[in-house]
């Protein structure tokens, strides 16, 4: 019996935090790729500490719904899941290349496949592009548009900046958008000065965050100047210093995220049948929507 466990941060304050986790779990459930799909959280229930004991299957894939490798994926989750003998070297990663480690979770005395975070998977690049399609309502968006990927800089976590650059580079290489930049919240190039970094009149701004919350709903919109105060709200697009900014909100809310979760499990050996194709298809942006 093949089981998927999606582990995410969650929140004590804000129901939006776990909403994408549940939505992607539902998409994957509907695809029929797994006999069961469970969710576990750091700040909600079931907690990381107790999620594995709710799992019935014997072929278990744990996928962290986090944007980068770091404190949570390297320390907190393995510790709380009680992965015996875990050491970050199991992933043999340069900060972007964690794939999976198979270890016994002593909580349940069974092996689990502990996968790398969704945010660093190559398929995540497609989700960022899909997010740009969603927010503009244009499945062919690209020409005449700039794209900014934004996240925390190195101050919080060196790997967080790596993930942002990685996807920005890949999107730039594809040549779909006129310009692509990686911007940061706490270091240069700062998202506050977004119009200075783009020549395009239209720029899609995609925050590399799993869920909407303080950073994506208050911090970034105010820093960028979409609004004075987040309580006032803002339009999409909103013009700031002559640049039309299409603010996408957290990329993690994009339905195609379910695909990245599946890719992580597939890389770790899960048998998914045609679920990947199904999920890519069912999460598409309708033209002219």
């Amino acid at each position, binding site marked *: 019996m093949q089981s998927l466990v999606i582990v995410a941060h969650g*929140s004590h304050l804000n*129901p939006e935090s776990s909403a994408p986790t549940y939505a992607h779990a539902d998409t994957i459930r509907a695809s029929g790729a797994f006999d069961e799909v469970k969710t576990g959280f750091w*700040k909600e*229930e079931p907690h990381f500490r*107790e999620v594995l*004991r709710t799992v019935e299957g014997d072929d278990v894939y744990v996928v962290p719904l986090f944007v980068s490798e770091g404190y949570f994926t390297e320390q*907190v989750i393995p510790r709380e899941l009680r992965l015996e003998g875990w050491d970050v070297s199991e992933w043999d990663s340069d900060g972007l290349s964690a794939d999976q480690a198979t270890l016994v979770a002593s909580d349940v005395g069974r092996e689990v496949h502990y996968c790398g975070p969704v945010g660093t998977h190559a398929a995540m690049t497609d989700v960022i592009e899909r997010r740009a399609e969603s927010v503009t309502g244009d499945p062919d968006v690209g020409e005449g548009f700039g794209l900014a990927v934004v996240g925390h800089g190195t101050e919080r976590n060196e790997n967080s900046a790596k993930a942002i650059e990685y996807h920005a580079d890949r999107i730039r290489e594809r040549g779909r958008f006129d310009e692509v930049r990686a911007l940061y919240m706490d270091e240069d190039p700062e998202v506050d000065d977004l119009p200075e970094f783009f020549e395009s009149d239209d720029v899609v701004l995609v925050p590399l965050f799993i869920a909407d919350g303080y950073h994506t709903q208050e911090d970034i919109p105010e820093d960028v100047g979409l609004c004075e105060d987040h309580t006032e709200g803002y339009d999409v697009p909103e013009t700031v210093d002559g640049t039309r900014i299409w603010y996408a909100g957290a990329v993690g809310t994009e339905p195609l995220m379910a695909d990245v979760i599946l890719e992580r499990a597939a890389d770790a050996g899960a048998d998914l049948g045609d679920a990947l194709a199904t999920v890519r298809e069912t999460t598409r942006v309708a033209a002219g929507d």
Partner: protein
Amino acid sequence: MSDPESATDSEFVTDPESVTAAESGDEPAVPEIDLPSDAFDAVLDALAGLAPDEWIRFEGFAVGVAGDDRAADADAHYVLEPAGDDSRTGLNERDLHAALADRAPAVTDWYVFERVVGEFGPRRAFLRWIEDADGATVAERYAALAAGIERAWGQLRVIATVTDRGERRYEVRHADDVGVPREELTAHDDPLEAREIVTLDGKGRYRPLKTAPTLRRGWVFPDLGPKELYETVETVYPATIANWHREREGELDVSHWRETMARQSGIYGVIRTWDRGEGHEHVNWVAEACCDDSQCLKRREWEYDEDTDLDVDGGEGVFPCREPCSVVVSAARKWTRLESEQPRTYEFDLTPSEKEQLEEIVDAVADGRTDEIREADTKEGANRYRARFLRAKLFDDAGNLGGVPTDPDDPDDPDDGE
């Protein structure tokens, strides 16, 4: 009825109708069960996979396949062995069906637990517990199910029933909605819809702790199967069945306060500095604040450490709490910082009523009663007008109680240190 006194009483009832009523009320009859074909097919399936000398055991009897007849007479090789009775051999499929149809309650009971519910420990134990399957006989259970067995799980009420095909059906609703006609409740059938129900409380506030006694009312899952019941309960109260099951098996892995806080890292690493080897009173306060039954329906099983129990009662909940939860850990981080402050002496004057009013305000907030205090009920210390009057009278422009700065070095900032 098992109470011998009532049985004696009924002997003296002269009206024959009321005797019947009393009897049927006391000992509900075992319902008529038709053996459904899926249950019979499952038995045939199981028989086909049996090794010689193996039996499928039902309550009160077993069926098997006569070893010698296996190949010779495929039509008439089934054996039925009632306990303590003559066994019957040489049954063909039709004979077997007739024999099992006569014993349909036991056969459907086997089918429910072996084929529908399955092996997964927590689910199986929970569904058996619902109908006391490890204590009561099939006849007793089917009779009780026909009347409806009610079970409590936190704020949930589960009613288990049986259909005339021996299938289990379950209704789940909020305990406070017991007695409300179903039509007045919003009906759900997908267990995952419970996620919506548990997110916000009745006043629309986010519920960070699923086992807080703030589940909103007004909904019902009217007709769930066994697996769906399990999923629904696990969605409302995640992992509670798994932990309850471990506890029943004597395997609950409790992680006490000290080890839990020692494990914390990052911004929570500081909590371990709150334990200074000077007793555990602070943890009593945490448990009293957060884990009391009025705040959380889990029964707290964790203590200060393995050798040191807290002085606060763990509560009466059906399901255990095996370690301080993330809400408690987060609050403890805040308290670790706050409790590192040294007390100071502040001097200001309060009338006796003002002192009492402050106490009433703290009580009202701590008991979550502020919403209940009516706008014009100025008898209540935590009444809004009373609180505004107190503020107008006693706070200076910077918000300092009695005009006394919180920090004499920074008289303008009463919230300093936050």
